[in-house]
């Protein structure tokens, strides 16, 4: 039970996908204009990631290792098509808002990365916990970033006005440049927090997590 909780909870803080592992950046930047969009994208990712982990884990002993990547891609892509159809049927405005980033969930490195690094080596229960945990962490991060950008960029939160009446919206935040700068500052804040915690324990300050594609586990290519 305790290991199950450990696998689940690591996605919520220690390995928080976009802020700690620095993975799957495109949707993080693209769909966080508003908190609603961030949450919608997050839910879609929870669905795909959890189910892809479940299926990969179920089939892990049947799939021959030489074609495993192809199998993972088929599983992930089918789930994404599934999400596309369901979203069109039940949440069409969200589908219009997220646009091209719905089909692009399939190339989000978290999905294939977890299939390769975790689900193909662990039991179904563990993989479900892993997928759910990382998925929820991803969704919360997207919602947080969306809320931040929406509050300053539109002066609203989940569509409701939250700033004082004379507030002049800071349009920079909702455009592409704002997305990059905002994510950069959030990452820096996370690093500063870590270093403060280390300082309390009497440890030396360190640099934040490195972003090299190795983190996603798909490519074992040694890049400098």
């Amino acid at each position: 039970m305790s290991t199950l909780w450990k696998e689940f909870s690591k996605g919520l803080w220690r390995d928080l996908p976009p802020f700690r592992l620095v993975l799957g950046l495109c949707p993080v930047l693209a769909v966080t204009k508003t908190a609603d969009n961030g949450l919608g994208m997050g839910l879609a990712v929870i669905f795909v990631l959890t189910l892809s982990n479940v299926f990969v884990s179920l089939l892990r002993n049947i799939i021959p290792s030489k074609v495993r990547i192809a199998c993972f891609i088929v599983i992930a892509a089918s789930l994404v098509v599934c999400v596309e159809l369901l979203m069109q049927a039940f949440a069409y405005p969200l589908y219009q808002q997220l646009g091209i980033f719905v089909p692009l969930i399939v190339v989000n490195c978290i999905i294939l990365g977890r299939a390769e690094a975790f689900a193909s080596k662990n039991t179904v229960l563990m993989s479900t916990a892993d997928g759910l945990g990382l998925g929820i962490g991803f969704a919360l991060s997207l919602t947080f970033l969306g809320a931040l950008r929406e509050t300053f960029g539109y002066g609203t939160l989940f569509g409701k006005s939250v700033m004082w009446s004379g507030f002049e919206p800071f349009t920079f935040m909702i455009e592409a440049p704002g997305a990059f700068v905002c994510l950069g500052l959030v990452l820096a804040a996370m690093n500063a927090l870590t270093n403060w915690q280390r300082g309390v324990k009497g440890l030396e300050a360190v640099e934040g997590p490195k972003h090299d594609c190795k983190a996603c586990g798909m490519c074992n290519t040694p890049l400098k």
Partner: protein
Amino acid sequence: MDYFLLVIGAIFVNNIVLAQYLGNCPFIGTSKETGVAIGMGFAVVFVATMAATITWLVQKNLLAPNDLGYLQTIAFILVIASLVQFVEIFLKKMVPPLYNSLGIFLPLITTNCAVLGIAIICQREEFTLVQTVVYSIASGAGFMLALVVLASIRERLDMVRIPIALRGTPMALIMAGLMSLAFFAFKGMAA
């Protein structure tokens, strides 16, 4: 003239990374050195063009006539994954020097959303085959431009003292934001 606008639009106005948010993982991940950035850039131009062309043919000849449009995502990603495998084997056997310089980037490209993104954009914009080829080359070039510029900025950043919390990825993202702001000016020119 139309093609000229398409090229300018894809490279500057709607730059694939800085305005359309595609391909950010390799953009941040492989922009520490200019040499690596150039290699990655060429690999993306090459694969994106081939992928967009082949997926265009698949969509128009296989999916659309059979009313299978909803399988677009799954068909496209399979085409791209096998294309990357095939290119890797082909280069290794036939053009070893090219393989030595581009080879290590190829596995990264299957999960590069810029490649799948360009293929899907070409379908959503209902481009013709020629427009698809032109657009995908231009978009790939736009990716390479952004990547090389960011890499040269980051090489210079190595020589300055930055607060420790900002070092690495956070600083790279803020630099990308400032570049994006510069590219944003092209939007005003286009309108």
